[in-house]
């Protein structure tokens, strides 16, 4: 499709994970999903603990997917940091937007609306 000789000379050297690793990660993802489901099912109290557990489990699942399925763990660190650092910025947006939302609901509680 393209005129340049962009042949892949490195990619074949990357770490190959044995099939067993994929199956184990798969199994782990099942377990973690089930755990987060039951955290909600049994309505773990207090509420903040339930939320922390759910977010924590989601983050572990995301880490497993990125590290093993997407092979980010065996990529060069230059790529790893390129992918993992910028999302901090969208977290900043989320933090401000959440703080703003609670401020708005406070204002609404105080002044109606």
């Amino acid at each position, binding site marked *: 499709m*393209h*005129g*340049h000789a962009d042949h892949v000379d490195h990619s074949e050297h990357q770490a190959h994970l044995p099939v067993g690793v994929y199956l184990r990660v798969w199994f782990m993802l099942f377990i973690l999903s089930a755990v987060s489901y039951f955290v909600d099912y049994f309505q773990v109290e207090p509420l903040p603990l339930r939320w922390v557990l759910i977010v924590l489990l989601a983050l572990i699942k995301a880490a497993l997917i990125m590290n093993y399925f997407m092979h980010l763990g065996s990529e060069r660190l230059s790529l790893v940091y390129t992918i993992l650092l910028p999302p901090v910025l969208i977290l*900043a947006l989320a933090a401000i*937007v959440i703080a*703003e*939302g609670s401020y*708005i609901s406070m204002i609404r509680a105080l002044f109606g*609306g």
Partner: protein
Amino acid sequence: MATPAAAAHAAHEHHEPQSFWRKYVFSLDHKVIGIQYTVTALAVGAIGLVLSWLMRLQLGFPGAVGAVNPTNYYQFMTYHGLIMVVYLQTAILLGGFGNYLIPLMIGARDMAYPTLNMLSYWTYLLSVILLLAGYFVPGGPSGGSWVLYPPQSITAGTPGSGLGITLLLASIAVFVVSATMGGLNYITTVLQMRTRGMTLMRMPLTVWGVFISAVVALLSFPPLFVAGVMLLFDHLLGTSFFIPTVNVLGTVLPHEGGSPLLFQHLFWFFGHPEVYVVILPAMGIISDVMATHARKPIFGYKAMIVSMAAIGVISFIVWAHHMFASGMNPFFGYIFAATTLVVAIPSAMKTYNWLLTLWKGSIRFTTPMLFTIGFVSTFVIGGLTGLFLGNVAVDLPLHDTYFVVGHFHLVMGVSAILAMFAGIYHWFPKVTGRMMNETLGKIHFFVTFLGAYLVFFPMFLMGFQGIPRRYFSFDLVAFAPSGLDAVNAMVTVAALAVGAAQLVFVANIVWSAVRGREADANPWQANTLEWQTPQIRPGHGNWGPKLPEVYRWPYDYSVPGAARDFIPQNEPEVAVVSPAAGPEPEGAGR
């Protein structure tokens, strides 16, 4: 879309597509796509310019143009803002200069994924068509101002709150898709397709500017897309993301519980980085043009890159300084004022570097160089007035006044446009093989530059007087000082003069493309790779059978002991520098 001269003299190669349509319309060639972007953006920009004349005529000579009424004044303002910021500047600086220059400057044959590149242009064209279609639907185009704040932008009573705003939001969403496709190509090409010897720290600053700007665009446009989709949902499906309980023209809308501030946060998370999406490529172009025409290495090359990257990062955490007057959580003012003032540091670094590049240079006052020096001036004035607005206590009284209009027009409007002109005058010989006329160019520069100051500098004074922006007429405003009419008339005359100067520019482009003096291969005696192609106007694949190899950074100007005052990037060291040369200048041979 391609220039007629290019059509007449196209170089023929075996693997080049032969049909007219494949070659000049649905072309995969980054150079053709870059020219398509440039021509389309300039055409849309002309519409934006005419809209600004109509607004200025109304303000300077109220009632002189009978066709302007409050309704279409707000429509003009909305379209002028969006066209100039998004559809002209972003498109031309990323799509036009980025496409044309990146592969040539880093020694690649084309973009990484030419098909996606072509799609990027055609989706951009679609977004332009959707935008302009607003003028041909019942109710007319949206008059919700370019920031599109809900509830007012989608509620009845605002011009174009029916089909007009739908088309506008669709157009913005399509533009985001187009910019994403383009941005993916620019970033991937820069990272993965450089030629031998072209390390990142040997890239010209234009490429650095476009690269960082593309990264910023790729990460900041998504929230705009999100905000646009959500506003479209509010408008079409009756959701209440942004609309609280509200009474419009006597009827209570069915919405409840939405948060207008949420839209403003999402919009400005895009809107502020967008300023840098526009200004970073401009800074890159300015740095390259300045070093070439001052015959000196750019001062502080690494500092330039670091400051551009720092500006890119910081631009993401300053957005709420546009919202000091919006009624947001007051604590945010504290955070965002601090981060905003930090941006001044890398910006000032760049300004000092430009001034020190000029210091003791053998400056050639060519037209591109004049525009470059003009850029530094308007950037400094615009940037310093930005520091006023970054402080909450100063921003609050100034926020809804002409001070803000003067500030952002100088810092991102005029500055980026001057850089765009510098780039066009500088690379015109590359594109067409002919030089642009210097006399017409200098007339264009002086009228534009001095005119821009005449237009925007009085606005700072008007702002201090408390003259509110966004007003259609000041006839019934009791607090307007007596001299306001005279100042407004003067500003309008200056704006029309600046507009007329753009006609000189267009005439210059057309005349020079056909009749201009034939350019030689390297008319500015520049070092960067794009001037070292086998043909003056490179054909398909840019480099002939063999890619160039790079041995040095792009700023080896006036190297002591060298045979000439410039050493192109692809010249091996031994061929030029004599062993008896004086001390090695900083950066040589890097």
